[in-house]
């Protein structure tokens, strides 16, 4: 009887954990393959434990250059998209103006458009304008699809802020600029940081839009795609596992950071 009651209370949790395991299974496979020496180049059986790939991650020709390029593109796109998106989020939250609804739709549309359509239409534009494809066109494309996610993320944070805090700041003789710098900005910062992290991960991981607008420039996902046709070098799994661990570390750091009052 007790067992039945316990099961009735906890089966959802059990089902949820099974689904979570399904989400994490490929990551475990990638981590496993990163310390595995397969018996031949085209087989992915678990054969022999090795740390060679972790010791020499750049042993696969061209891969590290592609990773560095993806990081550069990611940083640049994140910087531009975060600045543009944050400004727009402030504009949409704090002000009522003609065209506000149209602007919201303009922000929403890129998120509701399949990547293959966005990528191909940019290619059609660059082709018609005879813009040479490469590093710059990739950054332009990444900023375009990241900016909407930044706006939505920062806007959600700003919408949750108590407007009375600004009135309180004014009561304490803070001018508008001081109130912004000492009250609004610190409170909005977690949202801005989250948006930047999201933008970086979207940019670093993007394949479809990039593939249309890269020309001969190779980013890390494009390198993986090309390598997949001839057998993936094991070092690719090292990068995948390392990205996962870095993300976990970042999250752990933000969660453990001591909170202090910032007024």
């Amino acid at each position, binding site marked *: 009887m007790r067992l039945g009651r316990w099961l009735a209370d906890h089966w959802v949790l059990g089902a949820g954990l099974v689904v979570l395991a399904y989400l994490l299974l490929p990551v475990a496979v990638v981590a496993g393959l990163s310390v595995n020496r397969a018996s031949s180049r085209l087989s992915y059986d678990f054969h022999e434990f090795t740390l060679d790939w972790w010791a020499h991650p750049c042993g696969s020709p061209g891969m590290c250059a592609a990773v560095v390029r993806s990081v550069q593109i990611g940083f640049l796109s994140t910087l531009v998209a975060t600045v543009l998106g944050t400004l*727009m989020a402030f504009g949409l939250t704090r002000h009522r103006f003609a065209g506000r609804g149209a602007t919201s739709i303009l922000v929403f549309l890129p998120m509701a458009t399949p990547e293959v359509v966005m990528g191909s239409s940019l290619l059609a534009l660059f082709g018609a304008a005879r813009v040479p494809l490469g590093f710059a066109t990739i950054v332009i494309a990444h900023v375009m699809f990241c900016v909407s996610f930044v706006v939505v993320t920062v806007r959600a944070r700003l919408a949750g802020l108590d407007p009375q805090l600004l009135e309180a700041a004014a009561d304490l003789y803070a001018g508008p600029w001081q109130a912004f710098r000492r009250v609004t900005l610190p409170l909005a910062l977690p949202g801005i940081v989250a948006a930047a992290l999201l933008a970086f991960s979207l940019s670093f991981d993007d394949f479809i839009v990039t593939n249309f607008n890269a020309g001969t420039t190779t980013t890390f996902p494009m390198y993986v795609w090309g390598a997949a046709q001839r057998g993936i070098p094991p070092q690719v799994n090292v990068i995948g596992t390392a990205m996962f661990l870095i993300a976990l570390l970042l999250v752990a750091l933000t969660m453990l950071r001591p909170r202090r009052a910032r007024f």
Partner: protein
Amino acid sequence: MPYLLILPAGLWLIVFFVVPAVQLFATSLYDPSGSLATGYAMTGDLGNYPRALGDYWPQLLRSLGYAAVATLACLALGFPLAYAIALKAGRWRNMLLVAVIAPFFTSFLIRTLAWKTILSDTGVLVGLLRHAHLLGADGRLLATPFAVVAGLTYNFLPFMVLPLYASLERFDRRLLEAAGDLYAGPVAGFRRVTLPLAAPGIVAGTLLTFIPAAGDYVNAQLLGTPRTAMIGNVIDSAFLVRLDYPSAAALSFVLMFAILVLTVGYLRRVGAGALDAVS
């Protein structure tokens, strides 16, 4: 003042999203007998549309079908997970949320390739299924429609879980107790209380899953065969391999239009108010 704030991002979106879309539409009306080298003549020819549809309607229908099945699978898998995190996880809640988002950081191409390993003919899973006679002696998982739909389901599951979680998180469990006091059984309680309150999350989640899944071609390419090709595969190769811009552009617009019609129809059915949760 507000215009100064929204102008930079607004201009960026207009120049690099709206203008390209217009350019793409113009491209879909070009004379198909031109080429990239010789240039295309703008003839306003609508013939690219019936031509593209006549050639590729199986891939289009397959894309919408695969995406619909994957979306339903994501809902079936994502609901228990989101419910468990929002209402049952207690102090483990943040950790479980991180676990949902963390796989995002291992590039989605690498994770899809990992599925190729998991589903491979010599893999453990196929061996087990064959042993249990759930799969014939030469039955396979890789290179089947199942593999493609499973890959889509896997890749877009977090897009379902996060909005579901967001709407369930605010859910007051005492409402279910109240339903119980009013003699509602667990099924009636779920159907009449939980489900309506989760509706915004379900609507947002199904759209965020269905739209990218319908346009995806990575899963079909890595886990399927030419017989499981989706419309994205066709558009990709028309643009980048066959260099047939006019019909590729027409196909892109057909895909957008199909998605738009389905989305509007869906929202009218469930009520557009449910979408407020997303924006």
